[in-house]
């Protein structure tokens, strides 16, 4: 049996969030009071998170988990990816929507079904730090669904952001509205013979998202996954650390996505 991985949060604010997740993984992780001595560090994805993650690597972390990563300097994210590769450190992103465990569990199926659709719509509701962060959330979900997005337009009102583009041969349009009436992201992928309706919760709980496929045989719901984004991210981190083969390509994609949003 492997020893548990010691883990700490970078700030007291994140400590409670980490404690809730660790309670579900008592054999795999051990809470550490001091981030400087823990092998894994949980970082909040606000502000200059990439710089803070790089600093954690410099102080000895073998794994960094970034919660709800938002807009930051893309160059800093690329530098983090380079540094992590160089040091053999795992950097895992715990993304509110793109990291949804139900979505990730069914990702291969969803990508296959998406190939038969021609339009993808996203409607997102919830508080967001900036319009760019909301746009990034939508772009990241498409990235998680294997769609290489070409964003061409962003429009804003005081409380909304609308993103338009294409994903290969598909049309894409997303609308995010700042509101305290819940947190959710609805994805509709429309095709003549197939419709996908994915309702991602984004509230951090283990309540499963609702993924539905409709075709000529009718509508069916994909099996549920009662797991939180954070727990799934910690488990991926553990696997990567134990395999000793960190893969930080996701960070480079994240930097690309930020740069795309920033360019508009």
């Amino acid at each position, binding site marked *: 049996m492997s020893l548990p991985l010691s883990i700490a949060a970078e700030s007291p604010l994140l400590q409670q969030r980490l404690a809730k997740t660790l309670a579900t993984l008592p054999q795999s992780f051990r809470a550490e009071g001091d981030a400087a001595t823990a092998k894994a560090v949980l970082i909040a994805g606000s502000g200059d998170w990439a710089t803070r993650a790089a600093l954690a690597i410099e102080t000895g972390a073998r794994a960094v988990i970034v919660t709800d990563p938002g807009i930051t300097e893309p160059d800093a994210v690329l530098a983090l990816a380079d540094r992590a590769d160089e040091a053999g450190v795992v950097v895992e992103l715990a993304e509110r929507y793109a990291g949804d465990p139900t979505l990730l569990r069914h990702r291969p199926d969803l990508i296959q079904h998406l190939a038969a659709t021609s*339009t993808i719509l996203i409607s997102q509701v919830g508080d967001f730090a900036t319009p760019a962060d909301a746009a990034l959330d939508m772009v990241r979900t498409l990235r998680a669904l294997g769609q290489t997005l070409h964003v061409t337009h962003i*429009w804003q*009102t005081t409380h*909304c952001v*609308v993103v338009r583009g294409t994903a290969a041969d598909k049309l894409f349009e997303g609308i995010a*509205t700042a509101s305290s*009436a819940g947190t959710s992201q609805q994805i509709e992928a*429309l095709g003549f013979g197939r419709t996908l309706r994915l309702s991602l919760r984004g509230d951090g709980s283990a309540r499963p998202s609702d993924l539905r496929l409709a075709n000529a045989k009718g509508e069916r719901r994909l099996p549920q996954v009662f797991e939180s984004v954070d727990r799934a991210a910690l488990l991926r981190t553990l696997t990567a650390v134990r395999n000793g083969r960190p893969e930080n390509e996701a960070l480079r994609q994240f930097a690309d996505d930020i740069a795309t949003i920033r360019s508009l």
Partner: protein
Amino acid sequence: MSGTKPLGVGFAGAGPVTQAIHLPTLAHLPDLFTPACVMDVNADLAASVAASAGARHTNSLETMLADPSVDVVAICSPQQFHADQAIAAMRAGKKAVLCEKPLANTADEARAITQASLETGVPVIVGTMHVFDPAWRALQETLGDLPTRARSIRSSIVLPMNDRFENWATEVTGRPEAAWSMPGQMTPDLIRQIFHGLILGLAVHDLPLVRTFLPDWRDLEIWSARQLQPFGYLIAGQAGGRAVQLAGTMHGHGEAYWDLDVVTDVEALRIRFTPSYVHGGSAVAMLTDATGAVRQIGPFDRNGYVEEWRAVHRAVRGAVHGDAHAPPDLATIADDFDFVMDVAAKASEQAIGELS
């Protein structure tokens, strides 16, 4: 029982809308209405539909309008005939006109209809069934100032082809051939025609509801307008700082998704409508607030078709002042149509602009 004789209904047009929507709906309201006459330029079709409804038939509008047993005229013909037929019915002294959506094909025609209604005193009810949906009506009574606080409004209509639900609503006689052809090279005129057809044919169902949440609808700005294949639209814009997204498409499988979403700073409203044609009950409205509490309105066992005909009856028999279930007045009908035409015009100009 209403205690009065049912009103006789004459149908201008005997196609699927008459057969699959209105005749089955009137069967829900035998005390209020009876089919009296079916008119269609296709005399055989008129005769066949009339026979099954127990009504007379004709291929002449004038003959139908001269029929004293016809109290109310339902305009169920192609939209380019709506204005002439509706105005003729009002001038003929009928008691009310139910005009299928869209009210008309142009703004001038719509103005002529409302002017004729004003001059003759004959009420016009537009068959936008969601306006009359019991859940929407009940919701409106509880919304308070929510419409003035909307931040985004999103209409999403994703439906199977009509024949699926027509066949559940009735046994359709003489269904017109679908005239599908892929357009050739896109030209500005062709794009205008396509968006005109899409907005007046599909988006029109919910645009009056969308307008409810857009106090500054006359300032509508369209950011993006794209066609969806094989048939549909995807439009984004804003009015008065509120983002609007309109999506509509028809597909080849059987599932119907018909939603209107409105988000404020502290509430999220979703209204999920039942498909056209079938009597599948009302919409369901779900209003979620910032505490996570959800208030649900509906489903009710009746749909907007039944309620729009009840509105016709109230309009004929005399609505009580302040009646929450009264049909929209002429000014509202005119504004609704102006909004529809504005969306179609601005969306097509945006799409044309993207050609170059």
